[in-house]
């Protein structure tokens, strides 16, 4: 159960980003550029580190120690699982899932729930760590070495994530990425770029279509 590991390392999660400010800032710039509007939810909100940039009002996560940190930042949070989302149907304008897809044991069930709670034509964004990138290869290596969090992950390529999202009743309309600089040599904050070319962080934007 990967979320239990996240709970154990809740405090270290934000600390890592504090040490890697340029990475965090590049990712936040990308998320902000998506210009998400209306009533939004973060599925797998964690410590809420991206919430000010995604414009979400609410977050869910099973990891309580992470949620307590998010709550202290003023985000409305609920301890819940993505497979069993505690909301009525068609209430959200958008839903975002950041670096979460790779940790889901039953991704189709989670996407089905997101589809259910989104309004018609609602927006779904999945930000992933693409497997087929220099960063992805590093994560895969760490996973094989038994990294405390990555050992639970199943990393996707952008293509795999897009076909999964399309399969679950969404239509992918945009891919935007950041982290072109390779791991270990990350020197400056990056501007987001459309598409995917060996980036370490890609956001896939889709519309609820049926």
């Amino acid at each position, binding site marked *: 159960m990967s979320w239990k590991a996240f709970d154990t390392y809740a405090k270290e999660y934000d600390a890592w980003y504090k040490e890697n400010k340029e990475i965090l800032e590049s990712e936040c710039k990308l998320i902000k550029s998506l210009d998400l509007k209306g009533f939004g939810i973060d599925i797998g909100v964690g410590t809420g580190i991206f919430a000010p940039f995604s414009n979400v009002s609410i977050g869910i996560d*099973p990891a309580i120690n992470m*949620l*307590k940190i998010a709550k202290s930042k003023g985000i409305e949070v*609920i301890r819940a699982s993505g497979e069993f989302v*505690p*909301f*009525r*149907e068609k209430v959200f304008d958008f839903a975002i899932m950041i670096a979460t897809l790779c940790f889901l044991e039953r991704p189709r069930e989670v996407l089905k729930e997101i589809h259910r709670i989104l309004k018609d034509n609602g927006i779904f964004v999945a930000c992933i760590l693409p497997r087929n990138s220099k960063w992805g290869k590093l994560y895969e290596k760490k996973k094989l070495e038994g990294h405390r969090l990555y050992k639970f992950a199943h990393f996707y390529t952008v293509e795999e994530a897009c076909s999964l999202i399309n399969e679950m009743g969404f239509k992918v309309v945009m891919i935007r990425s950041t982290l072109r600089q390779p791991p270990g040599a990350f020197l400056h904050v990056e501007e987001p770029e459309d598409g995917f070319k060996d980036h370490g962080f890609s956001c896939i934007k889709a519309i609820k279509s049926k």
Partner: protein
Amino acid sequence: MKRKLLDILACPICKNYPLELIVFEEKEEIEEGLLICNKCNRWYPIMESIPHMLPDDLRDKEEDLSFLRKWKEKIPENILREGKPFNLS
């Protein structure tokens, strides 16, 4: 938890709404309380202002039971006796 949240909440398992809300402690937000699904009889605690709405298999039985014991004077009898997934009977 803000009261307004109740307008969009549903039971995570059977998707019934509205849920019944019982408030035990309230300051700016609901600090401690209980959400009840009157369809499937599940109950969900609100602790330190955070609603806990996990599926049955991810819930902590001991934590849930001590929550029921702590607030038993304010919890409806049917939940204490027959509430899911855990109760005091």
